[in-house]
């Protein structure tokens, strides 16, 4: 990754993070669906990790989490901690498995949302919030994950399109494409 590409990618991620957090706070949080709000932030962090790898995923998670905690006047560090882990995990998933299925973003989004909510709840419990685990709390988390899953694919499309120009060419994908052409896949050359 050249320095220019890297700077361009970082600028795109930073701009995307700011837009997503403000859009989340100003609009999305105001529209409850089945009693819960869609939370775009963990989806965005997971998708950045899925596109850019574990290191950038973790750094984005930390920065987005800090921004959310600052903007919403919450306990600093709670969201950063959970989002850092979410971003790192999705990045490692890409580095180790590189899943290509069409529904991968949906599954990653759902898992990231669940991890963020459960992780957040765990930290809050550790900090001494007076709320025992109840069926209603579990229901809220399940509903939150479902609602986030519904918007996972559109969010993935937006994140991918926003970062596309700054992403470096992945040699593994290039190899995979070449292999597909040579093993019977439809090559663009064969059409002509």
């Amino acid at each position: 990754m050249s320095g220019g590409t890297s700077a361009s990618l970082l600028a795109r991620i930073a701009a995307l993070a700011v837009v997503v957090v403000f859009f989340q706070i100003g609009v999305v949080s105001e529209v409850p669906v089945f009693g819960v709000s869609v939370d775009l932030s963990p989806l965005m962090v997971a998708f950045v990790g899925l596109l850019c790898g574990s290191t950038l995923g973790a750094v984005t998670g930390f920065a987005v989490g800090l921004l959310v905690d600052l903007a919403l006047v919450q306990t600093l560090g709670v969201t950063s901690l959970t989002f850092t882990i979410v971003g790192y995990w999705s990045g490692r998933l890409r580095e180790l498995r590189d899943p290509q299925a069409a529904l991968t973003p949906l599954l990653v989004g759902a898992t990231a949302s669940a991890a963020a909510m459960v992780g957040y709840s765990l930290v809050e419990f550790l900090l001494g919030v007076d709320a025992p685990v109840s069926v209603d709390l579990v229901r809220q988390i399940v509903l939150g994950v479902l609602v986030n899953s519904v918007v996972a694919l559109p969010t993935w499309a937006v994140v991918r399109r926003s970062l596309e120009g700054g992403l470096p060419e992945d040699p593994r994908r290039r190899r995979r494409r070449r292999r597909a052409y040579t093993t019977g896949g439809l090559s663009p050359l064969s059409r002509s």
Partner: protein
Amino acid sequence: MHDKTVRRRRAVLLLLVVLSLILLTAYFGEAPGGRLHSVQRGFLTVISPIQDGANKALKPVRDLFGWVGDTVHAKSERNQLVKQVDKLRREVIADQSEKHSYRELLALYHLDRRLSVNAYHQVAATVVGKSPNIWYATVTIDKGESAGVRPNDPVINDEGLVGKVTQAASDGAQVSLITDSSVGVSARIGTSGATGIVQPKVGEPNDLLLQYLPANTQANRGEYVVTSGTVSSSDDSLYPPGIPIGQVTSVNEESAYRSVNVHPLADLHNLDVVQVLTAGGGSLPASLSRLAASLPPGQHASAGGTAGEALAASGSGG
């Protein structure tokens, strides 16, 4: 080369996790006036105008989503409201005769200095930010210390009690809603007058529980719960009496104390404009709030009577 990449990746993760834990520990351990809280307030001051602008620009989008949801619920809500209007009309007719006697009694007992919403300065504010998670029932408003807003100021809207100000920056403030686990409101049931503390229902972030009611309290479904105008600890906000909080949905029979489930009247998911009740220095609310803050824990100060009565209450241990 590969080892170097792996080491760097792990080092970044470790660094970020440790940094998060340090932030968390430092923030959780420091006083509200501490350095990290100040940084947060400073950030709030900087982003409040941006949030305000974004809020105004994105209002059409929000309204569009809101319209879809509102349309779905409009019909059932309309039928409920028609029934409610009929019930209220009957109650108003019944209350009119009692109102006259009540005014006479108030004058007779010199309770016309009773603290009310009118004793406060009302600052209208727009909600510019809202926490999306289920743990923090907080909103951010576009008015802060420059408009006279201070921590612990009560916040209401046209439907009822919304919450209280927990942090104030110069041009913005954070409001903890009544469904936030950190908020407790001294309240009474409208008809019986039994008093207790309204707190969020555990595991039900959208519902409230009026607790610590006397065991013989009679409460019926649909009765209104209003602020009692007292505080139970020095950390509490002094809400003026009579602000509607919610309606009783069911009664829980318990051994020593009785509690009732309360559904908030204010639609806390769709807050747009709220009013902050601020108290100018030297005013009756300000002096009563000072008095409440000076009480030792466990004692109650009353805003329902005169300052002398409140002093008497503090002297007798609430």
